[in-house]
């Protein structure tokens, strides 16, 4: 048997390594247990132990913005109210992320362009918006811009106004202190049929994409696969439109035009001042941060790369598109993910300007039911899963664009 000195095992590095981790785990466990027991006994004493049955009881309140595909009235259970809030959060976050990225890329690129005017403007934008608290920005957009627009009954800003025989009027586009309304396409009875067709079009597009890629690989002459796929999709979709129209007797989408009925606007698509203010605030604020991220990414591309691109005779656009951006993306994507997460989380400030996002609706539910712990748990759970999902996607994207090292 090999000699084993039991007296000095605590000096053994292998022992210490494992022992330290066990000790750490134990401390975490004990602290966690202490906190949990403490919370549990305090809640028990007050008779406030978590109970989620309130999710199935009637909510009993109206929500300002309910999407057309969710059936919600005051009689709906609280979980439906949560769902409406969730949708409103997703809607503003998703559109916000798209627009903020657009703003960020444009402004960030402008900051590194040689033109002094664009650079100055972009710098001014970034420095101004980064240094204003978001809440102030939101309140400004809401109380300083959107609700002081001309009143709906007086002189709203309209485009394509026509009077109707009954004395009311309609317009293609209405902007007033009640928000924005514009003509919009709504699905008709032929829509389900056309939807199937669109899926088929998508399949065709994917097939074209793969085929072009395969052909490119085989022949060594790379074609741009994506534009071809897009073209195929549009072609199939347009043909399908007329096919469905003649088969079903009506177009898959019909145009509705907003018209004024008493005090409400009917028809078309409506965006409330709350939504517009929140979206504007989030997009401009996050856009400024994204601009900085983009600038950092662009400047991380070494000068030699740019000079090489110039030497090859690439135009500025080609240089950005083919040389600079692909390399900058590696630097841009991780901090960009944080900005996306920030935007989503910041959307909870909606409560200040009356937009019924998840946090706002949850606040009402909490107050009607008194179930604070449960409501907070749900809110935290939802935002955590949003953030994790966004992170997962962005991490996947990040891995995809990293240099492939061979």
């Amino acid at each position, binding site marked *: 048997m090999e000699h084993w000195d039991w007296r000095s095992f605590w000096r053994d590095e292998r022992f210490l390594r494992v*022992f330290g981790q066990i000790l750490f785990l134990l401390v975490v466990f004990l602290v966690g247990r202490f906190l949990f027991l403490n919370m549990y006994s305090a809640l028990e004493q007050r008779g406030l132990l978590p109970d989620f049955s309130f999710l199935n009881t009637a909510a009993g309140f*109206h929500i300002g913005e309910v999407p057309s595909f969710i059936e919600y009235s005051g009689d709906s259970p609280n979980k439906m109210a949560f769902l409406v809030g969730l949708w409103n959060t997703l809607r503003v976050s998703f559109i916000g992320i798209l627009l903020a990225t657009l703003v960020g890329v444009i402004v960030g690129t402008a900051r590194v362009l040689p033109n002094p005017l664009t650079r100055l403007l972009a710098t001014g934008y970034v420095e101004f918006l980064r240094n204003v608290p978001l809440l102030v920005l939101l309140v400004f957009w809401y109380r300083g811009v959107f609700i*002081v627009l001309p009143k709906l009954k007086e002189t709203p800003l309209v485009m394509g106004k026509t009077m109707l025989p009954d004395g009311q009027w309609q317009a293609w586009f209405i902007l007033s202190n009640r928000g924005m309304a514009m003509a919009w396409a709504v699905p008709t009875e032929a829509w389900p049929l056309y939807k199937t067709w669109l899926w088929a079009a998508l399949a065709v597009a994917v097939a074209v994409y793969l085929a072009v890629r395969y052909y490119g690989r085989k022949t060594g002459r790379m074609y741009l696969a994506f534009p071809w796929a897009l073209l195929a999709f549009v072609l199939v979709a347009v043909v399908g439109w007329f096919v469905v129209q003649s088969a079903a007797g009506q177009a898959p989408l019909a145009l509705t035009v907003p018209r004024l009925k008493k005090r409400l606007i009917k028809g078309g698509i409506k965006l409330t001042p709350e939504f517009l203010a929140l979206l504007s605030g989030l997009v401009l604020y996050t856009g400024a941060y994204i601009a900085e991220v983009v600038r950092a990414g662009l400047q991380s591309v070494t000068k030699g790369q740019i000079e090489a691109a110039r030497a090859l005779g690439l135009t500025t656009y080609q240089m950005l598109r083919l040389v600079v951006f692909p390399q900058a993306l590696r630097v841009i994507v991780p901090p960009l993910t944080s900005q996306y997460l920030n935007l989503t989380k910041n959307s909870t400030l909606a409560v200040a300007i009356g937009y019924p996002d998840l946090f706002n609706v949850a606040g009402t539910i909490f107050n009607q039911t008194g179930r604070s712990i449960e409501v907070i748990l749900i809110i935290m759970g939802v935002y955590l899963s949003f953030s994790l999902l966004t992170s997962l996607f962005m991490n996947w994207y990040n891995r995809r664009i990293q240099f492939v090292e061979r």
Partner: protein
Amino acid sequence: MRRKGLWFLFVGLMALLLLAACQQQAGGQEGAVKEIVKTVVVTVEVPAEGAGEAGPAVPQGYGATLKAVQERGYLICGVNAKVPGFGFLNEQGEYQGFDIDFCRAVAAAIFGDPTKVEFRPLSAKERFTALQTGEIDVLIRNTTWTLTRDTEVGANFVHTTFYDGQGFIVRKDSGIETLEDLEGAAICVQTGTTTETNLRDVLDAHGIEAEVVVYDDVEAGWAAYEEGRCDAYTTDKSGLVARRTLLKNPEEHVILDVTVSKEPLGPVVRHGDDQWFDIVQWTVFATFYAEEAGVTSQNVDQVKAETKNPRVRSMLGLEGDLGKKLGLSNDWAYNIIKHVGNYEEIYNRNLGPDTPTYIPRGLNKLYTEGGLLYSPPFK
């Protein structure tokens, strides 16, 4: 071989640690939990072991709140800071209002000094959590008494101090005069209130389609109404009257002559301390009865010296030991009347005809005058 020996040691060590943890859990459970509760939840006392079986059942936490307040030396009262007439931070930076005066009355009953109170301004959403967690001793913040709040929320409502009802304020030139005229209107409302559910009830009952815009902050809601984002703002009528004074042109706005709900507003205490509940409850009754018996802050000393009325004598602590039964000094009610006044004085000071927030007394009259204020006898 040597490696294996080490691993055995690790496993053994872990088992030992686990065992120790388990033992602690089994043996020290009772003590550990009590310790934790004591350190964190100061105001809730853990009942002695077996107290439930021996002798009369002592409700959990009985007397704990008063003890905590007396040890602290002042009362912590959850209030509103944004409704003139009820709870408002005035230009001098002092809290002022109907609800505020009841906070002072409770402080006067306990300490004989109406200034021994700290006001915690709370939003509608925060208030119950603040009460549940013991951050405040009593909540006097125009809070509506409902069954859910009385049970699930863990709050106990003492006697109502103000009978209110929900109404609507609209612009005079809007052409809205009845509920039906609200068809198609945008209505602003503050979140975290019974107002939201009342609004839905009345809209659904009348088949009215309206756009509801919910604000977390009362200021934001009123600003939106004032800018014309909404055609109407809805809350308790007391709130409408009070806030109208803060609008740019109060005379351009009119409160509709409809009341769509019952809103009994009053002080709220936590579940589980009946003594504290009684103290706040009888503080309210003392102001009612003082008005009924014609005792005011001006004449209370005179009445104390001369009165023969046995109920007034026992209320003022000249006979019996009513104060002791509440755990207070015997001149508790005298202190309330002397320092804060009777109900009428409190009302007129904050909501009377001479104030900008005048609200006719309506249901808030003594039962002898056709109102609902009725104090049980001070016996």
